[in-house]
């Protein structure tokens, strides 16, 4: 057979072989604490989004945290993640300005494993480790306590960890001692030196009575 026909056959067969090999060398899933051992390698990382912003040139810089370790995901593109979402990113480990980061070429390689609204945490957990959730969207369960015009107290069943929820209680239909699930932003109120929950008019925020 002539070389020009053989070239077609070998090209297609070669691509098939490389495809097979590429499926064998998939990126490894790593803990954020081990990232420095994987420089130049393709890895999969997971974590909660604690910071995210888009540069003027359209790249997204996302900070994720997992088991008290955090790293930056540099995404060439933009994806609609929110603070508090649990995401998975696949990319190459690189060092930039002395910091480790995972460089992701395409937004297809960043997936949301769980939206923050679907990760329910008890109020007690929030009270014991507030620094982990500071600035994030959270979905917390607890009980309504004293209700005022622009805020109400939200506490656990033993009334040990009360927190102020800034919202318009009249907008929602609940009464004292009812079990609630609140989707809102957990932030530090520096004026009053306390943590609060803010429930605004954003689409994913709200107060729901458990069981209704």
């Amino acid at each position, binding site marked *: 057979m002539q070389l*020009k026909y053989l070239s077609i056959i070998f090209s297609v067969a070669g*691509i098939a072989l490389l495809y097979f090999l590429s499926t064998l060398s998939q990126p490894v899933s790593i803990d954020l604490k081990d990232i420095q051992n994987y420089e130049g390698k393709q890895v999969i990382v997971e974590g909660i989004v604690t910071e995210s912003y888009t540069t003027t040139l359209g790249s997204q810089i996302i900070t994720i945290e997992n088991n008290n370790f955090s790293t930056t995901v540099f995404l060439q593109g933009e994806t609609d993640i929110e603070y508090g979402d649990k995401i998975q990113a696949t990319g190459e480990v690189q060092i930039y300005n002395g910091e480790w980061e995972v460089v992701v070429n395409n937004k297809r390689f960043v997936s949301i494993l769980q939206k923050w609204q679907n990760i329910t945490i008890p109020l007690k957990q929030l009270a014991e480790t507030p620094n982990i959730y500071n600035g994030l969207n959270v979905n917390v369960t607890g009980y309504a306590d004293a209700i005022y015009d622009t805020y109400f107290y939200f506490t656990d069943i033993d009334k040990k960890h009360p927190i102020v929820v800034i919202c318009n209680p009249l907008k929602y239909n609940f009464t004292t001692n009812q079990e609630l699930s609140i989707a809102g932003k957990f932030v530090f109120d520096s004026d009053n030196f306390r943590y609060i929950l803010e429930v605004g008019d954003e689409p994913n925020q709200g107060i729901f009575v458990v069981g209704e």
Partner: protein
Amino acid sequence: MLDILLIILFCILGVITGIATGILPGLHVNNVALILLSLSGSIVASLGFLFNYGITEQFILVLICVYITAVSISHTFHDTIPSTFLGAPEEDTALSVLPAHSLLLEGKGYEAVALSAIGSYGAVIFCFLVIYLVRFIVGSPMFLYSVVREIMFWILIAISLLLIATEKGRIELFKIDHGKLPYVFGILFAAMIFIISGVFGIVIFNCQVDSPIGLSSPVLFPALAGLFGLPTLLTSIMTKPKIPLQIIEKINFDNKAKKSSIISVITGSLAGILVSLIPGISSSTGTILAMTARGESDRKQTIITLSAVNTACGFFVIVALFVILRARSGATIAVGELIALEEWKDIMMPTNLIYLLIALILGGVLSYFFVLKIGKIFAKHFANVPYALLIKITIAFVIILVYLFTGVIGLLVLLVATFIGLLPVQWGVRRSHCMGILLIPITLYFL
């Protein structure tokens, strides 16, 4: 004063290194830049004595960037030598091989090198003249880059269609050798090569390569060496061309040729600037755009245009690094890693860009004279060189480099890429269709 002297010194060293990397076939400037990046720590340490003269560590890193920039610009001048004399092009020079190589076979190898030098030198001058214009169009206040980014998917589709539809090769199938059908087969075959290369690109971007010497290079290195380098070398061995004695004479342009060359330099440079801004398209695609835009396919003008595209791209990737903050080449990735990139927002250029511009311009001027001198030496002695042996050594050299930078998987990628790269050579269509390797994955990225 010492700082300026050091900039000039590192620029000269860069030009000399660029001569070596440009003449060595198969060694792409991106690989050189990444090697230098990995050695930067040792270079800073070895230059530690400069601290005593008030030179800071930051400035030493700037000097390394000046060096890398000078290497890259010098490389774009000198890589014409192996593509003319050996027929061993990189992807960037693949299109000029046929014209340059055919001039060599007519004994006009030196003329090919000189035409290429004119194209590159012209591009340096043109790029310098339009630097502010491009800056204001691409960056603030016009922000054309942001607009282009929005419609990038369609731009890339248009470029791909243009690439395929302008194929003029004839393929005689089913014993049809007249009428328009052979041309239609040519276009269909071009589309097939484009798609095969694209699928190949998608597959290899998921392959992990490992360097046995710890200097991992992108998987594109063996892929491009295979698509554009080895097929020509293998064809050279198979066809055993006889290289005649080379004629060395000064190029004399008449008025028409002079005008035509100026148009080649301008269109080539504009295409090169475009290549430096749009991801996924290479100098060879830029040349097709430029040649289509000006509607001329004379081989001498092709050489000038391609060299202008190649050098303008090498020039503007550096400028783009400060305007759009995007690294579009190995050299700019290295520069971006080493020094702070201050966005060029105002009239005044960032200081680091000024240093690198000195390297680009001084490097360009020096390279012009060096490449003419070296081209002359090659032309004088080339008829006495055992050509087949030289080609075999070149092939072995490329294979060794691929193994050192990308290991066994890299060798496999090289092999498959070579078969794909042989398709256009064997079937007589343009090799640039192999650019599907970048165009298809990047188009999908913008989908």
